[in-house]
């Protein structure tokens, strides 16, 4: 019965080792899908490469369906799975700053490590920038602590906020994603370009 670590089925040290293995899988899939290239990643914002859209949403949906089906079969206790908390103000402001960082730097933390792993110096520099950014946040913590802690709404799920069941929301998300993929493919057919 999952989650394995919360239910005491595996030890903390094994958990950390498995984290390493899962990370290998994560890094491997990201790089295989082309997420080690900043030009591919930025492509979604200019319409020339929609890999981010496809991989991201397919990934989220696959896991979402997986979790819901596992719960249905009694293989996992969803109430013990971490749901990201919602701190309304910092979620939005942080997201805006990250968005700027994304379009300027062309990477996000996970993909920058992938890029650095295959020798991309811009990826490496991005990682360096990440450390600096986090350090700045930490040193000046008192200045933005209020913003950081504001409007804690707990850990609501999108489905409950919309008044839908998890399953119905999943279906709607699937349909929305497939529609986006279809549009993306039409756009790509119109503008073929070199693969970065």
């Amino acid at each position, binding site marked *: 019965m999952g989650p394995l670590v*919360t239910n005491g089925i595996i030890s903390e040290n094994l958990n950390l080792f498995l984290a390493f293995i899962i990370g290998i899988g994560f890094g491997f899939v990201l790089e295989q899908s082309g997420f080690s290239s900043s030009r591919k990643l930025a492509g979604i914002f200019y319409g020339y490469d929609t890999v981010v859209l496809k991989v991201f949403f397919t990934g989220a*949906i696959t896991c979402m*369906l997986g979790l819901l089906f596992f719960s*249905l079969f009694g293989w996992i206790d*969803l*109430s013990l799975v*971490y749901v990201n908390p919602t701190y309304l103000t910092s979620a939005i402001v942080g997201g805006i700053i990250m968005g700027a960082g994304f379009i300027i730097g062309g990477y996000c933390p996970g993909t920058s490590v992938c890029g650095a792993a295959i020798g991309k110096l811009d990826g490496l520099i991005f990682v360096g920038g990440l450390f600096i950014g986090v350090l700045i946040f930490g040193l000046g913590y008192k200045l933005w602590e209020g913003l950081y802690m504001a409007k804690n709404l707990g850990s609501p799920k999108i489905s409950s906020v919309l008044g839908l069941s998890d*399953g*119905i929301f999943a279906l709607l998300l699937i349909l929305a994603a497939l529609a986006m993929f279809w549009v993306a493919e039409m756009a790509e057919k119109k503008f073929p370009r070199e693969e970065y």
Partner: protein
Amino acid sequence: MKPLKWLALFIIPLGLVIAAVPQNTTKPYKLTADQLLGEANTRTQYVTPDAVADMIVNKDPSLQLIDVRSQEEFEKFSLPGAMNIPLTDLLSDKYTDIFNQDVKMNVFYSNGTVTANEAWMLTRQLGYSNIYVLEGGLNFWFDSILNPQKPASTSPDEEFARYDFRKSAGAALGGGGPIQAQTAQSQVASSPKPALTSAPKKKKVAGGC
């Protein structure tokens, strides 16, 4: 066939199934009906008023009394150090931390034992440990601790010791009667204090970032 069509063919039916199926209950019962019945039959959940009074007087930090009656009844009278969780609110999220732990003994009480036992059944079924019921409830508490009956002169010494203890405890806890010597308390042959079972906390992992 294009990859997109394969993907759609696969995930749309899955989505339809998961949307149609009723949402799975999130808190599966952790104890089977047999286990629960066994515990109820052996009355392991009961704590005597003597034991509780003893803990209160000695300021035992591991005791947590929980009044499961309504808020008005709680405000009219409650045991020292008790908190109020009306039975109707018992399963609310804000109290999960109180039950999901192995540091304190949670002792439910109500006027009799019916409501307290209901609370015990519910929380026990969810797998929480260190949960008890005050034997006889407040009614018995009044009779035994706050207004103890003086035993007949032919009763054994233990009875007298118990009576003395109850009187002093009762005085300390708000009943009538003069405060007796402290020595009486240590001679009480009360039922052994229930031991804390160490139940591993089901803590959600910290995620994010």
